[in-house]
């Protein structure tokens, strides 16, 4: 396909083939696609993925699965984590948006050590505006995972213009009422690698990040941190 500067993509009978060996990872393909889809998607079986990761497991103490959204791959993950747990001493963790049903999370519990939940924003209407969805499900998931001893912490990406003092205070209060020890991490939005509307958003200022951390601590949370 001529769009690829390295000639790493070919097109046969309606299928795009990607040559990993000559790809330089410039992502021109993704930027060229009108729906930002990637031709570099690889399919693995749970066993195949473990075979690929296993040689590197001497250098880590656990495996975390993020997104996309691991909640959409529960069947795969159950089998994959089952293999991880039977073949190693590694810990397992997912980073989820919290939209999966509690009984689905429960199926993972025998092989899952912990889950990190991304909370987009506490204000219900802004949440709907940002994601098209209500956030009550996310809050329910946080409660459910915590109740089962599986909540590693909650992450919230801070976007200027969306996140206000009120949002952070409410989120922190919600978590503190559950358990003041829940780790709450505020992540600074970065436009790198984003597309569409988010490209126009700015990174929050240093002092705003620091103020949010203090506000969250004021609600009684003992373990609040922020990214650089």
């Amino acid at each position, binding site marked *: 396909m001529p769009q690829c500067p390295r000639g790493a993509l070919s097109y046969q009978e309606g299928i795009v083939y990607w040559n990993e060996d000559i790809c330089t990872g410039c992502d021109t393909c993704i930027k060229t696609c009108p729906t930002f889809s990637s031709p570099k998607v690889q399919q693995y079986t749970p066993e195949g993925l473990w075979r690929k990761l296993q*040689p590197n497991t*001497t*250098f*880590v*103490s656990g495996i975390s699965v993020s997104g996309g959204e691991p909640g959409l791959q529960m069947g795969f993950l159950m089998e994959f984590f089952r293999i991880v747990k039977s073949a190693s001493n590694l810990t397992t963790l997912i980073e989820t948006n919290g939209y999966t049903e509690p009984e689905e999370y429960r199926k993972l519990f025998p092989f899952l050590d912990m889950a990190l939940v991304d909370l987009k924003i506490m204000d219900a209407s802004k949440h709907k505006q940002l994601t098209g969805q209500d956030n009550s499900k996310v809050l329910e998931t946080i409660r459910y995972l915590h109740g089962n001893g599986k909540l590693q912490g909650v992450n919230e990406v801070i976007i200027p213009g969306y996140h206000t003092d009120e949002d952070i205070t409410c989120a922190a209060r919600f978590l503190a009422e559950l358990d003041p020890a829940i780790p709450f991490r505020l992540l600074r939005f970065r436009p790198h690698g984003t597309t569409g509307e988010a490209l126009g958003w700015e990174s929050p200022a240093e002092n705003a990040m620091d103020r949010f951390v203090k506000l969250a601590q004021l609600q009684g949370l003992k373990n609040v941190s922020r990214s650089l």
Partner: protein
Amino acid sequence: MKTNRKNLPNPFLSFENLTEGLIPEKLPEFKKSIRDIMQSHELIHEQKRDALSNIAKDALTYPSISAEARALIEEGVICLLNEGAAPYHPRYVAPMYERLLANGSDFLELGPAVDLYDATASLTTAYKNVPCEAPVFIGRIDELLEPYYDTVSPEEARKVLRSFWLLVDRLNPSAFVHANIGPQKTRVGELLLDIDRELKTLTNLTLRFDAQITPHDFALRAIRNALELTKPYFLNHSRMVQDWGEDYAIASCYNSMRLGGGIFTLVRVNLKEMVKLAEPSIDDLLKRVIPMVAEKQIEIIQSRVRTIVEDVGWFEQNYWVDEGLIMKEKFTAYAAVFGLAEGVNELMARLGRPQARYGHDAQANQLASDITAAMHHAVKKVALPYCKGWDGACFHAQVGINSDVGVTPGVRIPSGEEPELYAHLRAEGHTHEWIEGGVSTILEFDQTATGNPEAVLDIIKGAFKEGVRNLSIGSASSEFVRVTGYLIRRSDLEAAKAHKALRHSSSIVGSGFLQTKPNHLHRVRRKV
């Protein structure tokens, strides 16, 4: 020319002559070299004095060696590493300072140490008198001083250690001066990490790390230091104990030796040049060239060892020996290599696979490991006199000097060309296996590591499982750069470019090295 840095370790000065020493026709050049040193504005007094003493040695005849061995030196296959024509002392010495503290020293007129003040004063005195070029090993500091910790109040202990650590650097301004701590956590060890972070001296430091012995919090503290200061090194202690037993020392860059012993000489083979002697055949290299070169390397080592022991009589009337701080039977010598990457890549190219590079290709990595193993076996085969501290010559990965243009230190993958982290550690780890005399891999992390020292610790543990013996951990934002095995400040590099005098003699060497290897400042940075 007044700005000529005559104490740089060039393998040969213009007046040097392997067979005859300084000949009358070269006398004017010899005098000029002396004058250049005396009139240099870039050397401070002590550095001039050292350079003058080196140049005197270089005027002598080299110890007698065969014509074949001499030819290998002249072709640049074997290099003597600026020890001077005729050595008059061992290259590295690792005294048993614990005996000095326990018994005192008649010659130095020191009594047994009774408190932390005595102990640090005795050590400081000893360092100034170590019978080699610099106190390249200043002891397993935590073991030495922990017994004296309770002789003063905790506040005093901190003050005494702080001034001790300051004096180590100010009186011995060289980044080859090396202290060891660990594997246990001690109060002195913890304090020293704190003080080192505060004083930011260039003194080299190694943490002897063993996941079974070293407490987690102590290891993390050391990692935090390393991400800021590019030290301490993380040394695979259990691997060291397998090879050396408990009584070993790490000196200079990362050099292993017996405690109470030392290393007579370091003679190194340039693998890039050695490969040129082989047919385009792995078999020819491993079975013909390597044994031939190793035999000559050992011959040269022998001649130098004999000079120190027999001609100089270094062990006779030497108070370090008489007072039991150094033992003749614990000495050995290094047979070293460098330029593995270029050697491998060159042979792969001659075998018709120029794309197959060390670090990136399975066959090249295998060849790297095979060359290292073959050199290891070959240097051990030939017996060495007076080297009872090791079974034959001890194999070492030498890091290189300024004049090595286009040659990568030791068995490293060239800076800027490293593969992804795990592949990097595996490839170099397989060569570390053979190098008991000292070797290290450098890792530089980006700022994500500061927030996650636990992940760095996981990587260190994994690396040790893959055979890595020693890791230099640092961050790209640190004001220190690990040149090859020692540290230099980025600001000293700038000062050297502006022809200013530098306090640390090692920084003069290091700035020269970095100017010939700009990639060294642009290593691949790792996220965790």
